[in-house]
């Protein structure tokens, strides 16, 4: 059971899925793939370069707003709008990274810095008139139109876009992990001083990690904008979304390639499954599902802090970073 054919098998199943499953499972899978993608993007910064970002919703929001604004005012289709969106998010990421690293802000303080920037931007967007401020930004909804370039179409289009994005991010992460830059990241994550002594330019490598991570994350934001067709600063830049983004990679397995994907599957199914079970037994009092979800997180973090994928990989005797 090598990692390769396990992955190809999963990909084949996912490609065929829409033909067999109903609209509800399809919507759930879109959510799974969306957060798997964002998990991979976030993991580049944390899993590879050891930088804990708790404000990644900032890049989702920037990506969404830029692409949506360009589409609404100039009709620029999503795929083209994604480029300036990624550029804006990357500049923001580089700005935060440069400030953080230059002033030697690290560990918990770096995490707090990312939170501060995300909340700062949320409040700014709450007051920006031309993006609708806090009453939200709505995209015109085209009915019954299929235009993949502009991300206009039925959910199954978004499913395949999410699948392509996730697979692409996986392959990109895998190649990065095996590249010169990837080795530099892994070295920095383990020991920055020793990495420097081995010829790694720590500052530039970290900035590269932030740039790649924020650019990828912003593409997830572009997807969000055209899938939901509306954005509120309070929801898209929210702390809750930043936390949602880090759950899958941490529960799945930090620094691994498949961790974020597995984590996203497990957590989303845990959520939907708990809701279903509770309703079945009639205990669906509001809050009950979240208490169970919290307990599950607690158990996983205490029993298997390195994440589920490394544990599972050992069981299936696959290379750890498969």
């Amino acid at each position: 059971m090598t990692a390769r054919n396990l992955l190809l098998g999963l990909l084949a199943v996912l490609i065929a899925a829409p033909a067999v499953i109903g609209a509800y499972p399809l919507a759930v899978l879109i959510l799974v793939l969306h957060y798997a993608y964002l998990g991979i993007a976030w993991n580049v910064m944390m899993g590879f370069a050891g930088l804990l970002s708790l404000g990644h919703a900032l890049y989702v929001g920037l990506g969404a707003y830029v692409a949506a604004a360009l589409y609404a005012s100039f009709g620029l289709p999503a795929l083209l709008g994604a480029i300036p969106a990624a550029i804006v998010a990357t500049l923001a990421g580089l700005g935060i990274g440069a400030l953080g690293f230059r002033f030697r802000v690290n560990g918990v303080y770096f995490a707090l810095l990312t939170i501060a920037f995300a909340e700062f931007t949320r409040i700014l967007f709450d007051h920006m008139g031309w993006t609708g401020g806090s009453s939200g930004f709505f995209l015109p909804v085209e009915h019954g139109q299929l235009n993949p370039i502009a991300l206009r179409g039925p959910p199954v289009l978004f499913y395949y876009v999410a699948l392509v994005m996730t697979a692409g991010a996986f392959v990109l992460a895998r190649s990065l992990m095996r590249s010169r830059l990837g080795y530099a990241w892994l070295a920095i994550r383990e020991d920055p001083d020793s990495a420097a002594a081995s010829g790694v330019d720590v500052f530039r490598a970290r900035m590269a990690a932030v740039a790649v991570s924020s650019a990828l994350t912003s593409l997830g934001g572009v997807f969000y904008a055209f899938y939901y067709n509306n954005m509120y600063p309070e929801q898209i830049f929210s702390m809750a979304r930043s936390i949602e983004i880090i759950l899958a990679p941490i529960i799945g397995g930090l620094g691994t390639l498949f961790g974020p994907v597995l984590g996203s599957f497990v957590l989303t199914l845990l959520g939907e499954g708990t809701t279903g079970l509770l309703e079945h037994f009639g205990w669906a009092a509001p809050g009950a599902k979240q208490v169970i979800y919290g307990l599950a997180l607690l158990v996983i973090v205490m029993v298997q802090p390195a994440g589920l994928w490394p544990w599972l990989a050992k069981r299936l005797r696959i290379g750890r970073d498969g």
Partner: protein
Amino acid sequence: MAEALLTATGLSKSFRGLKAVNGVSFSVGQGEILAMIGPNGAGKTTCFNLIAGAMRPDAGEVRLAGQSVTGLRADQICRAGIGRTFQLVKPFAGLSVLDNVTVGALNAARHVAEAKERARAVLDLLDLGRKIDEPASSLTLPDRKRLEVARALATGPKLLLLDEVMAGLRPTECDRLVEILAGLNRRDGLTILLIEHVMRAVMKLAQRILVLHHGEQIAEGSPEAVVRDPAVLDSYLGEEAL
């Protein structure tokens, strides 16, 4: 004496008033092995860190093959051609032995495949060939020492800085390492500057010895001469002893 590969002039560094290194000047000839000895707290490791870019000197200059490298960052100095090990070994614990050394090898290779090849060669040289896929965290202390040397060597240095690599090794392992280092020096003309307490290794390897005490040079010369120099004995055994 061969023309100097490394020259340090007037190196000084103090920490909140304590003069750890005070005006140290010396040079290491191309292809030479110089040992730096002295009691604990003499400023040896600080001197190393000033040369290797881990710390910025308060005063003084460091030149490598005629080029000034004073105050450069650790990675710039590594790229300039100085490989170093740490007194307290700092492996990339979560990575495999091969990946640990590949990180260093990337400093001297165009792409990853070439770096891996280079890493395998250096690991074989240091008798770690059989353990390349094990995580660095599972290695014994001697193996970690060898891993540290391997990573420094893999960066393709002109000058190798070794900080007490023999500490904690059994005599046989010590001799084996001395043999490898001597071979590199003979075969590839690798210049070595090492800090070492294990006199057994110093006497075998070093062509010249520099003695530091309280941050200052108190003696320099051939191993035989230095070992008998009264000032050196005082520094180790303390004045009253006589």
